[in-house]
């Protein structure tokens, strides 16, 4: 389970002064459910997800990941999380298997367990054809599969995806979407951010709309549609964010 409690993150910028990237954001994601975090570029999605993955430390507030506090026990949190984003690249000079093994070992898996996990994951993701190929020689789809295997190797109960399909071709994006759906089916807690509304409509059980660092709206897709009397999710976002966006402009 993910429980964000008044999460806030401020940055200091020489030109713009203090920037509130995330401002007092609270939400809960349940196991076996997918939480979609929606918002424009710079809304605060990546910063929120990075704080949940303990890559960034909150300025105020905290979050509990599977019962562990992100501020007090960041290493335990990371052991319970699989984090995937377009910015999480692979080590070019390792092959696919070595890449996954490395993260398995960092997660404290013993060698027999690691071997078993890798065999299972490589079979499930159909990766055996390129397990010995260096990551810099892999196709985009093969790289994404290797990244997925890397996040899955320690079988984390919580998965965090930050715009995982951005810039990918249709087939590779489908692999990722299928994988996210599979995570839910396996009872994992999943949170992901995206710009692609069709992905949200297909996957998300719960949606949060974030803008200017604040969580403006939250609910299931049907709740949001009913509240805003609008079927199209894109229109709902425009309605939620629009007044603020116009004010900022």
């Amino acid at each position, binding site marked *: 389970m993910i429980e964000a409690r008044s999460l806030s993150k401020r940055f200091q910028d020489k030109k713009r002064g203090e920037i509130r990237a995330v401002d007092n954001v609270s939400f809960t994601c349940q196991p076996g459910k997918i939480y979609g975090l929606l918002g424009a570029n710079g809304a605060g999605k990546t910063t929120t997800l990075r704080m949940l993955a303990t890559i960034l430390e909150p300025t105020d507030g905290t979050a509990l990941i599977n019962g562990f506090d992100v501020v007090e026990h960041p290493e335990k949190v990371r052991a319970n999380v699989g984090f995937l984003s377009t910015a999480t690249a692979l080590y070019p000079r390792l092959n696919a298997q070595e890449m996954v093994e490395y993260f398995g070992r*960092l997660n404290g898996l013993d060698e027999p367990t690691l071997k078993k996990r890798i065999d299972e994951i490589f079979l499930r993701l159909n990766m055996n054809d390129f397990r010995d190929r260096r990551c810099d020689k892999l196709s985009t789809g093969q790289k994404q599969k290797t990244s997925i295997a890397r996040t899955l190797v320690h079988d984390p109960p919580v998965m965090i995806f930050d715009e995982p399909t951005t810039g990918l071709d249709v087939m590779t994006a489908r692999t990722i979407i299928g994988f996210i759906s599979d995570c839910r089916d396996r009872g994992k807690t999943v949170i992901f951010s995206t710009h692609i509304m069709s992905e949200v409509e297909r996957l998300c059980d719960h949606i949060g709309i974030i803008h200017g660092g604040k969580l403006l709206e939250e609910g299931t897709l049907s709740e949001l549609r009913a509240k805003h009397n609008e079927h199209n999710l894109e229109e709902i976002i425009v309605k939620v964010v629009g007044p603020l966006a116009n004010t900022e402009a």
Partner: protein
Amino acid sequence: MNLHAVSVVYRKELTEWLRDRRTLISTVLVPLLAFPILIGGMISLSTMLIGQARKDIPKVMIIHGEDSPAVVAALRANKEIEVVPYASNWKDQISEKLIRAAVEIPEGFQASLEKATPAAVQIDYYEGEIKSEFGADHAEKSLKDYRDEVIKKRLETKNLPVSLISPFDTKKQNIAPPEKVGGATFGGFIGYMVILLCMTGAIYPAIDLTAGEKERGTMETILSSPVSRLDLVLGKFSLVLSAALATASLSVLSMGVSFSLIRHFGGSSGARGEAVQLLFQLGPKAVLSVFLMALPLAVLFSAVLMTIALFAKTYKEAQSYLTPMTFLVVIPAVASLLPGVELTPKLALVPILSTSLVCKEIMTGTYHWGSMALIFGSSCVYGAAAIFLAVKTFQRESVLFRS
């Protein structure tokens, strides 16, 4: 600290490092091949040139001397030179290498000798031009032989023994062991090379493991793993340190091969001979001591370079930050080579300079254990402080995610 995690990070970094072609070139190939090729090539070339210069009989011109046939005859009798006819532009001819030297005999030189009044013969040559120097040397030898002959005749005329002008001989006897003789000349240089190579060997991996990770987009990947920042830094640092020490070791080995080449090409006398002697008489104690003293310095370099490189977003940016660092190392290391710079308690606390100075002493077979302990200890403190700084820098979000 989790040693298992540090070891996992280290082994992964080592695997990647060994697979990097640039690493093989900068850490293995260049140190192993550059010294033998460079030094061996230079030695063989200079040996060939010197040999050729010795074979050629230099042309020497005699200026004036028409009234001094005896000295002219002495010069002409020397088979090592070829006396050429007089020409008024002899200086130009020396410059243009048409002749190699000229002997200027003053007017009335022989008459002066007979009257026993002082007189001087001048030899003109082109300094730095080896064939000209050989020509001048041969001409000077003929003149000295002639002078000795004149002295001998004067003494005989007066029924005086030759020993009158040379009542006793002097003889110099070296009591310093060969390693000290060589060490005094080359010891400082070897210490300097080890220190400099520890630095240059650390630069590339320090960049690759910090700014390189940012540029390739793998920094966020590794930060999302459960490894602590401390273990991550220590694993990376260990690899950078290994690279620094490997570069220095391979370079010293390569220098050994280069010195062997010098010996092969017949350099057994003079400075080259000392170098060869040094190499073959340096015991493992001296070499290990130098590496031991350089170890905390390599720690300092590795940690400082990693810390600085981490501020950069790209490989190129990191290179521009680290290039000036080379000067910071070269200057104190070179200062230790200057004559008169001796190890004092105050200097023992100055990093780099102190290590370079103590390496120079070790190479001459001198072990001041107190100074060595002080230098090793102070360098360890600096190294530990640098590691602490590196760990702290790795925990700064503003550095890791600089935009």
